[in-house]
C-alpha cells in the first residue's frame, strides 16, 4: 500500500468521543406519534468503534442523525465531536467521476475543483481504486462504490464517523472483504466510529463494544465489551460466543 501524503491531519483529542444521555425522540405522523427513541444512552471513547445492533425500526438511523446534528432530541443530551454521516446506500453522484465524488466534502467546504482532486487522488490509490479515478459510479462495482463513499465521508476530516449499515447492500462475500478493509483503514486513520448494523456477526467482528437496542421505542438493553485482538476470525469460538450473547440480548435464540 502506497503511503499517501495526509492532507487532513487528524489527531484524536480527548473530547472526540460520543455521549448520548437518556435521549428521547418522537415523530408526529398522520397516524399518530411514533416513539423512535426513549431514554437511549450510549457512550464512545475517542478512537473507539462502537457498533449498534437492533431490530428494524428501532431508531438506529434516528440515533445517527442526532449524533450528526441533523435532528435535535426532544429530551436528553447529545454531546459529541463533529460527526460526518456515511449513508446506507452509497449515493454517489452519477455525473461525477470517482475522483470528484471522493472530493465532494472538500468541494462542499468551498475548496476549488483542482485542489479537491489533488487531495483526493492519492487516497483513491490507497483505497485500491487506482485506475478508476475517472470512472463514473455506474462503471464501478458495489464494493468500489462503497469505498468511494467511505472515502468521501473520511475526507470531511471530522473525528467522528456515523456509518449507517454501510455494507448492508453488498453481497455476502464483498461484505466480509469490506469489513476487513474497514478495520485496516481505521488502523491507519483513527476515528471514533458509530456503526449501525443489523448483522450481529458484523457488530462483533468490527466493534470494540456492541450496543444492543430494543425494538421501538429504542433504548440500549445491553452493552457487550469485545476485548478480542484484531484481526478477528469469524469462526473463532470467542467471536461465536459473543455473537450468541448479542443474539440472546436481542431475544433471539442462537
Amino acid at each position, binding site marked *: 500500500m502506497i503511503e499517501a501524503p495526509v492532507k487532513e491531519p487528524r489527531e484524536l483529542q480527548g473530547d472526540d468521543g460520543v455521549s448520548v444521555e437518556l435521549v428521547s425522540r418522537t415523530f408526529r405522523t398522520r397516524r399518530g406519534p411514533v416513539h423512535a427513541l426513549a431514554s437511549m444512552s450510549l457512550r464512545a471513547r475517542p478512537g473507539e468503534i462502537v457498533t449498534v445492533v437492533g431490530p428494524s425500526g428501532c431508531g438506529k438511523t434516528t440515533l445517527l442523525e442526532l449524533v450528526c*446534528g441533523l435532528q435535535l432530541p426532544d429530551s436528553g443530551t447529545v454531546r459529541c465531536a463533529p460527526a*460526518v454521516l456515511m449513508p446506507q446506500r452509497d449515493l454517489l453522484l452519477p*455525473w461525477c467521476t470517482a475522483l470528484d465524488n471522493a472530493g465532494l466534502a472538500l468541494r*462542499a467546504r468551498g475548496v476549488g475543483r483542482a485542489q479537491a482532486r489533488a487531495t483526493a487522488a492519492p487516497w483513491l490509490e490507497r483505497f485500491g481504486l487506482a485506475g478508476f479515478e475517472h470512472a463514473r459510479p455506474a462503471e464501478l462495482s458495489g464494493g468500489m462504490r462503497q469505498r468511494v463513499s467511505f472515502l468521501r465521508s473520511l475526507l470531511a476530516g471530522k473525528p467522528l464517523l456515523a456509518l449507517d449499515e454501510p455494507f448492508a447492500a453488498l453481497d455476502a462475500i464483498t461484505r466480509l472483504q469490506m469489513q476487513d478493509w474497514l478495520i485496516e483503514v481505521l488502523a491507519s486513520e483513527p476515528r471514533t466510529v458509530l456503526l449501525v448494523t443489523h448483522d450481529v456477526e458484523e457488530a462483533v467482528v468490527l466493534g470494540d463494544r456492541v450496543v444492543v437496542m430494543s425494538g421501538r421505542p429504542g433504548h440500549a438493553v445491553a452493552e457487550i465489551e469485545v476485548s478480542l485482538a484484531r484481526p478477528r476470525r469469524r469462526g473463532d469460538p470467542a467471536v461465536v460466543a459473543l455473537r450468541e450473547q448479542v443474539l440472546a440480548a436481542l431475544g433471539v435464540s442462537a
Partner: protein
Amino acid sequence: MRRGLSGWPWRAAALLVALVALWELYVDLGGADPLILPAPHEVARSLWVDRSLLGSNFLVTAEEVLLGILLASVTGLAFSAAIHFSPTLRRAVYPLLVASQTLPIPIVAPVLVLWLGFGILPKLVVIALVSFFSIVVTTLAGFAAVDPDLIKLMRTFDAPRQRTFRHIELPAALPSLFTGAKIAVTVAVIGAVFAEQAGASSGLGYLFEQSIPQLLTARAYAAVVILSAFAISLFALLSLAERWALPWAYQREQAAAP
C-alpha cells in the same frame, strides 16, 4: 447506449409515407375540393416553387422560437430554483402559474401585441408563456427527486445551502430541464403561429394567415409542413444535445470488475 438512435425513424417514416399516400388518393379520387384540401403533390410543389418566400419567413419564425425557448429555459430554471428554495413563494405563485396556462393564447396574443408592439418582443413573450410551464414543472420534479439522504450528507459536510444546490440539486435536475424543453419546443411552434397571426409582417404563421384568404391553400399547408419539420428537428436536436451533455443520465449500471 446507442439504443433508439439506429432504429426508430424508419417505422415512423413508413407510417408517414402510408398516411400521405392515403391523403393523395383521397384528394385525387375527388374526396375533397383541392382548394380546401390540397393534395400532397400540390404541397410539395409549393414547397419548391415558393421556397425563397417560405425560406425567408421560416428564418423569422425560427428566430422567434429559438429565442423564445431560450428565454423560457432561463426564466423557467430561475423560477423553479426560487420556488424550490421558498415554500412560501411556491404556495403563492404556483397556482397562478397553473392559471397562466389556462389563458387562451389566441386572445392573449393580440393584447400583448397592442401592449408590446409589432416587433419580436410580444412573440417571445407568447412563446415563453406557452413553453415556460412544462420546463418549470419538470425541473421542479427534478429538484424534488434528489435523495434526501444526499442533502443530509451535504449538511454533515457543513455545506451552505447554495453549495448543495450547485453541486447536487442543479446537476441532478438537468435531465428534467431537458425533458421540459423537449415538450416545450413542440408547443413553442404553435405559440409562434398564434403570436404572428395577432400582428406580424413576416413569419410562417403570418404567411399561413395570408395564404388562406388568397386560396393559396397548398402554400399554407407548405408552411405547416415546415413548422412541423422544424419542431421535430428541434426535438431531435435537444435529444442529441442531452446525450452529449449528460451522458451519465443514459449510463445504466454495468457490471464491472469487483
